[in-house]
Each structure stands twice: as structure tokens, then as C-alpha cells.
């Protein structure tokens, strides 16, 4: 007896796609907590003001570009353009990794400006910045792992228009990670 749990399921959003949205909501709640804590804490004063690292501009450009390549990969998969899929997924991974390096660079800039995560000279203003970028970076690493899974699958010719779910989920998650960074960057610009 082979039972297919989703066999009886017809049309609409795939359960796993829906599950991914729920996961995204929970991640959003986490950052909602951080950013509202940031605002509440900032209102109380004793808040170190400093310039945001310039590397953030570079990382923002990188992550927007990676969203574009991700979308191209997804579109190519829908059109069964398998070479393009591999190329664009790989490009997304490269851009994503470059984004992480840019973030690490930004941390380096912060330390140079005497903005520390912890220790005697630290201020919650700086610590929050490290936490926001760090937790986002962690989620970006999970996104990269997901991309790696898609890349391996695409090398085995298992990503195409009849087998689209995996890259579709990856596409959603990656756009979310990009959007999340844009929100954080915007938030930091405004509340600075």
C-alpha cells in the first residue's frame, strides 16, 4: 500500500509553500521583536549615535541583484531552460556569499569606529546593529544551504517545469531574505 498524503489535495497553494509562509511569519515576528525593542530602548536615551557602515550600500546592491538572478533561475526552470537554471542558481549563491562578506566587512568598519558588540565600551545601539545583521546573516546562511540543495538537484536534472516546487520554495525564501534586509536597512536609516 503506497499512500500519498497529498494525493487527495487539489489545486490552490501547495501545503509546503503554505508552510514556508508560516515560517516566514515566525521569522518576521522575531525581527519585529528586535526592532520594536530597538525603538523602545532608543527612546530611553543613553544611545550611541554613529554612522552606518558604508559597506551596507554594497551589500544592499548585492542582495537585490541576487534576488534578480534567483527570479531568473525560477523563470528559466518554468521554461525548462536547464542551463540557465544552473547558471542563475550558482550566480545567486555567489551573490549571496558576497553579501555575507560585505556584512562581515561592515562589522569590521564598525569595530574601526569603536562600535562594539559587547564589552566595556559597548552600547546597546551598536549591539542591536550586530544582532540584527547577525541574525539576518544566520538566516541567509540557511538560504544558501537551500540554494545548494536546489543547485545539486538541478545538476541532476531534477529542477524543471514539472518539478518546480523545490525552486519555487527557494525563490520565495530568497526574496523574503532580500526583502527582510531592505526592511532592516531602511529601519536602521530611519531610526538612526
Amino acid at each position, binding site marked *: 500500500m503506497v499512500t500519498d498524503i497529498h*494525493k487527495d489535495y487539489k489545486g490552490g497553494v*501547495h501545503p509546503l509553500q503554505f508552510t514556508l509562509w508560516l*515560517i516566514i511569519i515566525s521569522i518576521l515576528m522575531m525581527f519585529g*521583536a528586535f526592532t520594536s525593542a530597538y525603538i*523602545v530602548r532608543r527612546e530611553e536615551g543613553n544611545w550611541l549615535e554613529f554612522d552606518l557602515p558604508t559597506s551596507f550600500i554594497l551589500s544592499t546592491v548585492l542582495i537585490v541583484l541576487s534576488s534578480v538572478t534567483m527570479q531568473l533561475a525560477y523563470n528559466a526552470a518554468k521554461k525548462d531552460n536547464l542551463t540557465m537554471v544552473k547558471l542563475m542558481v550558482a550566480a545567486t549563491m555567489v551573490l549571496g556569499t558576497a553579501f555575507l562578506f560585505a556584512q562581515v566587512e561592515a562589522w569590521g568598519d564598525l569595530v574601526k569606529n569603536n562600535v562594539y*558588540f559587547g564589552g566595556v565600551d*559597548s552600547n546597546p545601539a551598536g549591539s542591536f546593529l550586530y*544582532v540584527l545583521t547577525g541574525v539576518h546573516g544566520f538566516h541567509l546562511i540557511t538560504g544558501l544551504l537551500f540554494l545548494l540543495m536546489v543547485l545539486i538537484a538541478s545538476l541532476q536534472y531534477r529542477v524543471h517545469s514539472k518539478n518546480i516546487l523545490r525552486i519555487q520554495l527557494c525563490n520565495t525564501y530568497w526574496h523574503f531574505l532580500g526583502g527582510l534586509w531592505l526592511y532592516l536597512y531602511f529601519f536602521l536609516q530611519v531610526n538612526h
Partner: protein
Amino acid sequence: MSSTDIAINKTDMHHDHEEHDHHHDQNFFEKYIFSQDHKVIAKQFLFMGIIWAFIGGFLSVLFRLQLGWPEATFTFLEPILGGWVTNGKLDPEFYLAMVTMHGTIMVFFVLTAGLSGTFSNFLIPLQVGARDMASGFMNMLSFWIFFLASIIMFWSLFLENGPAGGGWTIYPPLSALPQAIKGSGTGMTMWLIAMALFIVSQLLGGVNYIATVINLRTKGMSMTKLPLTIWAFTLTAVLGLLSFPVLFSAALLLIFDRSFGTSFYLSDIYIAGEALSNTGGSAILFQHLFWFLGHPEVYIVILPAFGIVSEVIATNSRKPIFGYRAMIGSLLGISVLSFVVWAHHMFVTGMNPFLGSVFMFLTLIIAVPSAVKVFNWLATLWRGNIRFTAAMMFAIGFVSLFISGGLTGIILGNSALDIQLHDTYFVVAHFHLVMGAAAFFGMFCGVYHWFPKMFGRMMDEKLGYVHFWLTFIAVYLVFMPMHYVGIAGFPRRYYNWTGFEAFNMFTDLNTFISIAAIFGFTAQFIFLFNFIYSIFKGRRATQNPWHSNTLEWTTPVNPGHGNWPGEIPAVYRWPYDYSKPGAEQDFIPQTVPFSETQSSNLPQERVLE
């Protein structure tokens, strides 16, 4: 039996060919240990929940000994507690650690994981008509991460410096400074790691519950044909999804404060003759973040009990649930309100009194949907053909406890009264009745009711009655006197109160409470015996022993992986057609179409024939 292979969708997506390749029989590990079957995972959660409940209960007996007999020496505890008892006296810091662990274990490991984990897992696919959860793998992962969290939490009980001791709410700066008390050392680190894992586990489970209910309902199962259990479990999962990440954030910042020298919650502290370098932190910030989870958490605990009790009361009153849509509406109302009342835990933190009034107003509104539920349960019982099964006894007991505990919630919700009552035994009595004992009664109710579906055998009813009455009496004997000492200002979490003249007069009452608590704890062994004995030796169950309408009773007595051997049945009606006038039997299962019940159809149902 041939093997059962559950694979992710093949029909419309065609991925994962590899998962369709293994048709071999499942071995022991796949079937019972690393199972992806929601029924097995539910039982795993139930067993873990029961183990944790006994550990948590045992801790409460230990600290009740101290509270009931403050002058006595407990040399007989030395073999169990070792260095925590010196010259027959409990170590005060260990007392704090026990209180902390009792709260943590009961709230999170028993009444969140044990209750939602068991019944959401077990009932959601069975009652909505699905083969399994949306993602069986994530569901399995949810249990095993919970198991890992359990191991770490359990291990922390045996640390030389003891487990976490800063209260289950782990307020900084106490919890952030290892030099403050022993319980803020390694024990607190392990508490935080265990809770972080626990949150991940709950989120993995929760997204599965929601996705399954939204996406995998069988044909005909509209949202307004769902049993109230499913509504309750879904909203519980939604609450968890929105609030647990916030606790995770709060805990992460606390971890950074503890181990990485940040100052999110710490500012200007002078401890052990040394000024700390931390500046700029805010301890109140933690309380805001914590209670943004903490308040929905109490509804995460109680909503599943609401659902279970609604279902059991309707089935055993042989009557439709009174006000089905009002029940859904009140569940939704409570869920929404649960997110806007958190600061009523913080009335005495020096918050703006105007803000306090707003939170007080919102808090008191919760009384409305809660009262709607209570009146609907009572109206369902009213003139029903009540069958007093053990599950039904616990359901009625739940309603009683919920009323008794809920009424004091209205008193505590007033910011002015809270000045007197804050952190007294009045609060302890309130939440133990309304979310502790009541949620436990919901859990017992569910276990007695769905035991035949879980294990294919019946639990012993007579032992069930004995268990019910002893527990019910013990709960009231423990918590009623606590209200009294609480009004007198008796503070919670105090190791020793004999030094305070004002509280000395309560010595006898405290002894009484402790005796009742030990009595109530002992009664749980009747349940444990009944539970284990019935798994192996209980009377064999029939397919639908309670003559219930819901889908789970249309599966075989011992359903395999995939739940229904053939097609999943379609659903034609709501789940509460009990004692319908003109019907042949006093129940009409959801799978019976209106065309087969022409004698009982109501005028508006004729078009559906």
C-alpha cells in the same frame, strides 16, 4: 501487513522520485522511534508529557514540604537530594531552583508540548480527514528537537550548582548575572539552550498544524464543519507562531548579555562589592518581550483544553454544542485579545498609570469571550442525556475550575487591586486553577476520551472516577486556601516566612495545603497505573465507543499510517448532529449524507438531499 509509504506529493509536482522507491516493510526504528506518522509522534509527546508532569509534580511536593513544615528537618530527603539538604534543611537556593523548574516544566514541557503536541498531532489529521501532517518529516523533527530540549533541561536538574533559579520568567538582571545566585550559573545557560530548542520544536510543530488544517481538509470539510477541537488547536498554533519567536528574541538578547558582555538588559549594577561596566540596558525591556510571549502562552495552554472539553461535553451530553459559531468567535476573540494585554503582568513596574488603565480595560474584556464559552458549555449540558464517562467528569471538572479560576482573574486584572495582590499566593491560586489545573483536566479529559483511538483499548472507567474525584477534591483543597493567604499579602517564592510576624498565623493553613498537595500528587499514580495497564491489558475498544460523529471514529480501531485504508471519507454535515429529532440513532456521523437521513433533515437541509 504491507509497508506504508508516505511521500510528498507526486501528482502535481513530480519531485523527489527517490522517496517513492522504498516499499520495504518498516523496521522497528522507522515505525516507533523515528516515525513520521502523526499518531506515533502524538504518543511520543504524550509519554514525554506524562514523564515531565511527574517530575514537575514531584518538585512541587518537595517545596510544599518546606512551606508546610518550615521548622521540620528533612533528613529523609538526603538520599534523594544529597548536598541540597544540609542537616535536614533544604538549601534556600535549591528551593528557588525547584520553584523555577516546576514552573518551566509544567508550563512549557507538560501543558504546551504535552498537551498541544499530543492532541494537535493526534487529532488534526484524523479529524480533518488527512493522511498525515503537511510535512511528516518536520513533524518528526519537532518531537526530536523537543526530546533534545528535554534532555538538556533534565540534565540541568543534576548540576552541582543546580538548575535555573531565577523564576520561570527568568527576569534579568538576576538571571543575567551568574555571580548573583547559583541558579543563574550553568543551570540558567542550560535553561536558555533548552528553551531555544523548545521554541524551534514548537514552531516546527505549529506551522505543520496550521498548514494541515488550511490545506489538507477532506472533501466537504469547510471551516464551519470543523470540530471545535480543530479550531482550538489551529488558533493555539497561530498564537505560538506569533509569540514564540518573540521569546526567542528575548532569550537571544539575554544570552548575549550573559555570555558576550552586551548590555541589553543590564545597567548600573553594583554586585558583590563590584560595579559592573554594563550601562544603558533596560530590565523592563525584557519583561515587555517576555510577556508578549508569556501572556499568549497561557492561552496556548488553555485553548486546546477548550477544544477538547467542547467536543467531549457535546458528545457525552448527546446534544449539539450550544452556539457553535459563538464558540469559534470567542476562540478568535480570546486569541486576538491575548496579544494586547501583556502589560497586566507589569502593573507594578512603574508604568504610566494611564497605560495601566488601557491594559486593564483590554484585560477585563477577555472576561466576555470567556464567559461566552462557559455559558455555552453549561447550556450544552442543560437537559442533555449526560453520560458520565471518566472523560466527561474531567470535562465538567474543567468547567468548574475554569469558572473558579477565571473569576479571580477579573480581580487581578484591576491595576489598583494588583498593587496589593501582585506576587502573592492569590496570583498563584488564580493561575493554578485557571490554567494549571484546568489545562490538566483538559488533558486528562482528552486522554480518557481518545485513549481507545490511540491504543485500541479502553481505560478503566472505575479507576478513572477514583482518579477524578481525588484530583478534583485535592485541587480545590490546595488552591482555595491560597486565595485566603494571598489576600493577606503572603508573598510567593519565599523560602521561609516564619520570620514575618504577619504570616505566622498561616502556619496551619500552609501545612493543610501541603498535605492536600501530597494527597493530590499521590492520586496521579492511579492514573499512571490505569494508563499503562490499559495500554496492554485494557478492554478492547470498538470502532466508535462513544458514538461520536467526528471523522477519527471512521478509521479502523488501530489505524495504520495513512489513517484510512481506502478513500478518505467525504464530509457532509457539521460534527454535532446528536439527538437530532427524527433520526434513527442519537448521532449522525459527519460522513452520512443528507440523502440518507431524510426523516431528520431540517427544512433548510432538504435542498442538500
